[in-house]
């Protein structure tokens, strides 16, 4: 496990803490999801609630990848967030873990494609695209999307990408810009 060597104990704790913090914040958004699902279910568009908020749930992975800049940080960040969510009784049971790995690896692919060098809009956009592609492929099977009518698939795909780009891209950039301006990131890795 060569990649593991570049990780410090404080990195592992940091990434886990961020995952849990985000999970605690997301718990406050469950009502948004519930209200949207309940409102959209009668017209058969309940999936839109999921598509609109998915970017938020994929944010820990994209942010961890951008923040720590270590190989595997996006995957691990999202997996840890998912593990904690499962232990706190999420709505998706055991599939949370599979989704977590895939969402994290999807984000990681964007950074891999840009060779872990582009921590800018290019890297974030690539990550948003790959996360959308990987998670959508998984939902074709898991949520039975492959049986849906084509226009709905296109709509879901577009909404999902916008959500990924807004939460994983724009919001991540705004957050990390604040961190840059406060100069706190230089002080990591001193243990």
């Amino acid at each position, binding site marked *: 496990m060569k990649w593991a060597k570049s990780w410090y104990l404080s990195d592992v704790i940091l990434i886990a803490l961020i995952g849990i913090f985000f999970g605690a914040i997301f718990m406050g958004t469950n009502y948004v999801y519930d209200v949207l699902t309940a409102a959209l279910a009668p017209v058969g568009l309940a999936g839109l609630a999921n598509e609109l908020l998915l970017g938020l749930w994929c944010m820990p992975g994209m942010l961890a990848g951008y923040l720590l800049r270590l190989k595997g940080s996006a995957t691990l960040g999202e997996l840890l967030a998912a593990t904690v969510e*499962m232990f706190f009784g999420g709505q*998706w*049971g055991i599939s949370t873990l599979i989704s977590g790995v895939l969402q994290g690896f999807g984000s990681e692919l964007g950074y891999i494609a840009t060779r872990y060098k582009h921590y800018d809009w290019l890297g974030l956009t690539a990550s948003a695209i790959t996360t959308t592609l990987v998670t959508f492929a998984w939902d074709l099977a898991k949520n039975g999307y492959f*049986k*849906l009518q084509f226009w709905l698939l296109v709509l879901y795909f577009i909404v999902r990408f916008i959500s990924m780009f807004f939460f994983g891209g724009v919001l991540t950039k705004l957050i990390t810009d*604040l961190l840059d301006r406060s100069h706190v990131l230089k002080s990591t890795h001193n243990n």
Partner: protein
Amino acid sequence: MNPSIKLLLLLVIALEISFTMIISLNVALVILAIIYLGLHGTKLKTLAWLLVVPLLPAIGLWSTQYINGSGDKTLMAWVLFTRIYAFVFTGATFTLTTNILQLADALEQNWHLPSKFAYGVLAAYNLVPKIQHEVKVIRAAGLMRGQQLSFWSPQLYFKAILVSINWSQNLAQAMASHGFVEDAPRTHYRHSALHARDWIILGLGIIGMQIGVFVIPWH
């Protein structure tokens, strides 16, 4: 049973039902999970709660297929409805009978996960109540300054990350000062054993699942 093997079996089952469309199989898995949970003394109230938790997403998936699906809409609608219940109940057989400490021990001792990952995550996990409290503190502090921090406010996440950086360094230093050395060999107080019995259960579980998917003609 070894937690890592149990998790592996459940992940295989979850992956397999994601690609199959057999309603009875999903229902059978839910029933098996309920029996398992019952044998482990799970309260009826908890089981009832598990029925409520996925109801809304399940109805959402059902109606989406029923109204906007193609092909055999009713079949697919019920497959997805029962599938989410299968996910939640099989997941509960793990989360309600195993804690994250046992899982971390098994992954570290039986699968050679570097100890910094096992103990680092545990250190963070034990702060969950404090983290939930801290989110409230950050929000209240914002309100005092007239800032409404919502889930789309970068400031909310920024402050959460600042706290995380601070705590992660404190925790890492605390662990180091108690003798934790990264990548050094460790002795163990709690032992996690991997018996032949665990492998047999895993094998039987996987074979049973294949019989359920490919052999039994469900109706």
